[in-house]
């Protein structure tokens, strides 16, 4: 689309962690975010896995998009291609981790299948394509989004531990109070938006 002004990769990295957090500002990756944020260990594992997958898929999909799809005029196939690349990366990563380190596999591997259908991953790839990022920017954006997601899920898991002990109205228990918590986090993160101006 229109040629976006070149944003410095480092700015983009911090912007995607704080001011335009992929989860709190763009609502991406909510499903596993709510399901897995019950305890901090799983949240940590999933956050790490999402970050790794995001960086890899952002990089690989950038290459695929600019060296295969665009030259061949196949942009309309991008959804299928992107999701296949994501699925393949996740599958390969799972096998590699299984081979390399059993303890890492126990910490990370079990979350990997969930990531293929994590909206944040596909979302980052699509944003990268729509905003016309260059390769380094795409990497920074992928890394920043992953770290931002990781930060958000850790914060939420920590808060949910406290909320578990609090008296919450029956109808609000579970997803209801979680949504309110996320809403407050989102408000807090809006406070960062004065620091950086991106988009």
């Amino acid at each position, binding site marked *: 689309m229109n040629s976006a002004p070149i944003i410095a990769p480092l700015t983009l990295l911090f912007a995607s962690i704080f001011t335009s957090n992929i989860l*709190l*500002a*763009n*609502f*991406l*990756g*909510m*499903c596993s975010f*709510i399901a897995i944020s019950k305890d901090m260990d799983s949240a940590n594992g999933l956050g790490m896995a999402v970050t790794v997958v995001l960086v890899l898929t952002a990089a690989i999909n950038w290459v695929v998009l600019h060296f295969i799809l665009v030259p061949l005029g196949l942009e*309309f*196939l*991008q*959804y*299928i291609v*992107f*999701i*296949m690349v994501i*699925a393949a990366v996740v599958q390969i990563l799972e096998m590699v981790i299984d081979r390399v380190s059993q303890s890492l596999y126990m910490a990370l591997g079990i979350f990997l299948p969930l990531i*293929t*259908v*994590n*909206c*944040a*991953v*596909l*979302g980052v790839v*699509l*944003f990268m*394509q*729509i905003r016309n990022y260059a390769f380094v920017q795409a990497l920074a954006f992928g890394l920043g989004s992953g770290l931002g997601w990781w930060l958000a899920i850790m914060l939420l898991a920590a808060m949910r531990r406290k909320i578990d002990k609090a008296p919450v*109205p*029956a*109808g*609000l228990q579970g*997803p*209801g*109070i979680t*949504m*309110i918590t*996320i*809403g*407050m986090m*989102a*408000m807090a993160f*809006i406070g960062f938006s004065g620091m950086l101006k991106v988009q």
Partner: protein
Amino acid sequence: MSDHKPATVLRENVWTSNPIFMQVLGICSALAVTNLLINTVIMTVGVTLVTGFSSLTVSLIKKWIPRKVRMIIQTLIIAFYVIIVDLVLRAYMPDVSKNLGPYVGLIITNCIIMGRAEAFAQSNAPIISFWDGITSGLGYMGVLLVVAVIRELLGFGTLLGYQIMPASFLPWTIMVMAPSAFFILAFIIWIGKTIQFRQTKGATA
């Protein structure tokens, strides 16, 4: 879900096990478009159609899908329908398509579609699977439309672009921003669940 009569499926998907407020599924790609009603309508119609047709397709070809690769096949089927929706939007409603941006593509990763394909279409006949997909989409649409109406009315003072609120109305900036979507959804979940608790209590007492 022992018997699959169309009316039972409809009631379950729209109310008793509504994908959003009972299961909190599929809100990823959806909340972001609820700041304007028109975007929400287009988006939820798209999701409903994609859910219906991908459930139908999965159900039709379920015999030939090897178990091990069924997730990826389902994803491909969903992606196929999403591409159709995207191309139609681009051709006939370029403005809306631009507004929705990446969120049309993100229908692919909407957990509801995958969830219905996996939980229902995989083990049921095609027609009822199609109905199941459509009704799940309707349940999803209902909740999101409420969120969108509240957000657009309070955030811009308009509905579908028409001025509703008097000119003296001061728009609530928060409604345009992300947190309001979470809060409104939380309240809808709260109200919905409370009514359901009352009903089950009334049924057992």
